[in-house]
């Protein structure tokens, strides 16, 4: 059966691919938004909600009449978080699909790998990845949406300082997201009067972190633990933390901002503090908070469409899309240089991640205020501020 | 001076002597045969001589030089070639290429000229090919000059191994059951071939079960039983030797 299936699939793929290549430049008046995202692979928990969000809002916006009287068309390719595939897909978006703006790059590695291409092609690019290195130093055509890992570290350190905790143990994975966060945690420690007294690493595919946590537990002077990471491995870390009966205040970076983290930890996440985008705690925001409505609306729309809990990562894609379209509206065209300038001039744009104020020197445009510190209580997020 | 001499040679497999305290001398220019019942240690002896096995005890000398510690390839360089009871054909090559591999020791294999395909390499290649074709005709494989090895019948493959072994221009050629699995006509042809090889000056050691073949071609016969020398001599002497008769017939009669 598989044999027959594969023969037909081969034929089908050849025909379909041929058709796709021929039928490329048909509808010129659509506004084309290109995206390469880690829809599958180890970072799929980032790329999957991002892709879903882009598709959902493309439909919504089109049924509301589109932008500048033109329909928008979202083209998403799955990079699997692999830089080599990302560069090919970025090239395809630019050269073959002739998109007007690129939103995407779920991970820092794939984002940075396409930056040389973006520079050459002179096309506005809004990254959905976390590391500060993406916009520092500023690159003319490159913007990014999520709060940087540096902000997550700052948020956590400020809270630790409030609680008079100064000895920090870092535990994190060996992946790019984790390492970037770890680097910031090391670098920012002196500024906030913190001292990193332990630093433990695990592989992203590890299944038991009790060894690393035991070492932290037995290190003198550890007053708080800061976790850098994302995915199921963070759940296992929290679960092992509980298994070892540890009570040291535990912080995580914003990579754990999804219900999966809490569920996977089997109660181990209780009491863990996490800086997250306001999206996760939209209901708890005070009525006057400008983000509240945007976050609630997005959350409701996503849940209705996909019947699954929201994550903050989908929110980055939402903001990226909105900022790109807003800039196209203000530019009055899809002229790449004009759109780029308009993105750079984004002012008081209320997104689910916060209020964006871009400048030529700041291609992220978020401040610490839009980042919320939450604690996990009764298996859900509790806003602390 | 013996071409090959083994002294006090023993090989143990898990406590069992496959070859036990064997001392034999092979004189140049003759056809020697090694016979004996199954499990007598004939193939083990060939494996020891070619260095595929390391002996448990004893020495192997070639032209009075101790080669016991040398690798198989190093012994080949000293003029030993062989064929195999279980065919060891390079099935991933053509018949001609199989024989060309046999020329290995006579060809240069320097990397840079090879990679750049310098004229010298191409000349050597052509010469090796011509020699291989000549050898294939010599062993009676003229019909298979264009064949892939994996498309040839069993009998032809036996000859191909002989051609490959001859390609190295050995001083000593070890043939491990060249007639096994062949019909009487083919066996007769092998008989002629062995004599042709010996006439051309190569010393032959023949391990064989086919008594008609052995008795017909051998100048000298060694009989092994349980890894030990049972008898040695000319065909007539062996035929008349009571120990040999007992070893062969006795086991069958019992």
């Amino acid at each position: 059966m598989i044999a027959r299936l594969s023969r037909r699939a081969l034929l089908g793929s050849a025909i379909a691919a041929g058709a796709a290549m021929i039928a490329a430049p048909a509808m010129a008046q659509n506004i084309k938004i290109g995206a390469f995202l880690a829809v599958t692979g180890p970072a799929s928990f980032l790329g999957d909600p991002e892709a879903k969000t882009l598709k959902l809002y493309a439909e919504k916006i089109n049924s509301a009449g589109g932008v500048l009287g033109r329909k928008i068309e979202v083209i998403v390719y799955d990079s699997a978080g692999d830089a080599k595939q990302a560069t090919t897909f970025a090239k395809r978006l630019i050269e073959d699909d002739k998109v007007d703006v690129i939103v995407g790059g779920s991970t820092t590695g794939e984002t940075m790998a396409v930056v040389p291409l973006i520079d050459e092609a002179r096309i506005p690019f809004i990254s959905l990845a976390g590391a500060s290195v993406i916009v520092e130093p500023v690159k003319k055509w490159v913007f990014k949406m999520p709060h940087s890992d540096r902000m997550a570290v700052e948020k956590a350190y400020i809270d630790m300082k409030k609680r008079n905790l100064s000895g920090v143990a870092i535990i994190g994975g060996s992946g790019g997201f984790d390492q970037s966060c770890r680097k910031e945690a090391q670098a920012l420690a002196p500024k906030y009067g913190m001292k990193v007294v332990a630093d433990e690493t695990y592989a992203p595919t590890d299944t038991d972190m009790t060894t690393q946590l035991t070492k932290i537990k037995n290190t003198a002077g550890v007053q708080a633990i800061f976790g850098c990471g994302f995915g199921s491995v963070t759940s296992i870390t929290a679960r092992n933390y509980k298994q070892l009966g540890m009570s040291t205040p535990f912080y995580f970076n914003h990579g754990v901002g999804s219900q999966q983290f809490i569920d996977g930890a089997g109660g181990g996440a209780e009491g863990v503090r996490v800086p997250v985008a306001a999206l996760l705690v939209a209901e708890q925001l005070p009525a006057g908070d400008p983000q509240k409505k945007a976050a609630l609306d997005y959350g409701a729309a996503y849940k209705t469409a996909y019947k699954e809990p929201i994550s903050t990562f989908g929110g980055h894609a939402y903001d990226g899309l909105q900022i790109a379209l807003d800039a196209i509206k203000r530019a009055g065209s899809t002229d790449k240089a004009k759109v780029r300038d308009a993105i750079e001039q984004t002012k008081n744009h209320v997104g689910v991640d916060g209020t964006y104020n871009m400048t030529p020197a700041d291609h992220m445009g978020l401040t610490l205020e839009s980042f919320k510190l939450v604690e996990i209580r009764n298996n859900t997020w509790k806003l602390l501020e | 001076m013996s071409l090959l001499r083994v002294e006090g040679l023993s090989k143990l497999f898990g406590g069992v002597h496959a070859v036990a305290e064997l001392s034999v001398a092979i004189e140049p220019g003759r056809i020697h045969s090694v016979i004996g019942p199954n499990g007598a240690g004939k193939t083990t002896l060939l494996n020891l001589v070619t260095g595929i096995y390391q002996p448990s005890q004893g020495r192997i000398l070639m032209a009075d030089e101790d080669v016991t510690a040398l690798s198989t390839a190093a012994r080949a360089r000293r003029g030993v070639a062989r064929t195999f009871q279980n065919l060891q054909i390079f099935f991933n090559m053509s018949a001609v290429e199989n024989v060309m591999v046999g020329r290995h020791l006579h060809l240069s294999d320097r990397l840079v000229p090879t990679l750049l395909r310098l004229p010298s390499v191409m000349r050597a290649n052509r010469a090796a090919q011509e020699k291989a074709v000549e050898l294939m005709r010599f062993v009676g494989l003229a019909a298979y000059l264009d064949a892939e090895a994996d498309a040839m019948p069993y009998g032809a493959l036996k000859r191909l191994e002989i051609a490959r072994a001859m390609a190295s221009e050995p001083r000593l050629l070890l043939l491990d059951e060249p007639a096994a699995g062949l019909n009487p006509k083919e066996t007769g042809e092998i008989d002629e071939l062995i004599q042709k090889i010996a006439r051309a000056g190569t010393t032959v050691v023949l391990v064989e079960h086919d008594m008609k073949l052995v008795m017909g071609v051998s100048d000298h016969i060694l009989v092994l039983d349980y890894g030990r020398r049972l008898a040695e001599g000319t065909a007539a002497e062996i035929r008349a030797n009571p120990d040999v008769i007992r070893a062969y017939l006795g086991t069958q009669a019992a």
Partner: protein
Amino acid sequence: MLRLASARTGGLVALAAIVAALPLFFPNNFYYDVAIKTALNAIVCIGLNLLIGYAGQISLGHAGFFALGGYASAILTARYGWPGLLAMLAGAVGVGLLAFAIARPVLRLRGHYLAMATLGLGIIVAIIINREIAITGGPDGMTVPRLWVGGWRVSGAVAWYWVAAGALLLAVWLSLNLIDSTLGRALRALHGSEIAAQTAGIDTTRYKVLVFVISAVFASLAGSLFAHAEGYVTPIEAGFLRSIEFVTMVVLGGMASTFGAVAGAAILTALPQLLTVFQDYKHLVLGAILIGVMIFMPNGLVPSVALSLRRLRPPVPAS
């Protein structure tokens, strides 16, 4: 032999013609990008095919050599200001020496144990590249400066296409030369029967080491070119999934066939681009294609196609 020689030249000429004509069909730079990646993967596969297809020794760690070449170029040019070609050469020599050093103990192993050992070595390389952030940039990778050849800055898809295509043709030529030689026959012989090869006077260990080093150097050079062409290199290039991808290319295209290695690389490099039409089902389809090809063409694409072509032609009477 005559037939073989003509197939050899004919194949090379045909490949050169394809390479020269392809740009006529490329509507834009994206196609060049896929072609460049195909060519560079093919170079790795040609080297790997010498090892796996001809010498019969498996390696599940060649991505390690590829990445080492890439990172040698990246680090020496970006951090130490070396000229690109010199860095590439240094990388190749370094990788060659490394391969030489590990080849003897590793190649004593056989079959799956050899696969395990090479897999382990590749993974060790990947982990070290991943962890030594100060030198390699860590998991996020590092930027690689453009390649200068003499006074020419190799930049842009078209330029890189010709560089990669030239390198590919050179690799094919070298590989074909190697195979049809004493050396190449020795390699194939040790695959066919190691004992018979030794009996023919072939020092099998020496040849295993030699072919391992050659294939590692091929991978290293391709890695260097890749780093410069992309302008960026990440540790994923060293990962074991990449190594398995290379082996899959070789087997799919056809073991013991230089053109098979090229075909395998071309198909598996282009396939992800073609499979985007299946969207969520792309992995399903990719898996099915792999299974299907291997069932119906167990010797790989090129040898199977060549065989059926030969069967179509009337047999040549033996002279």
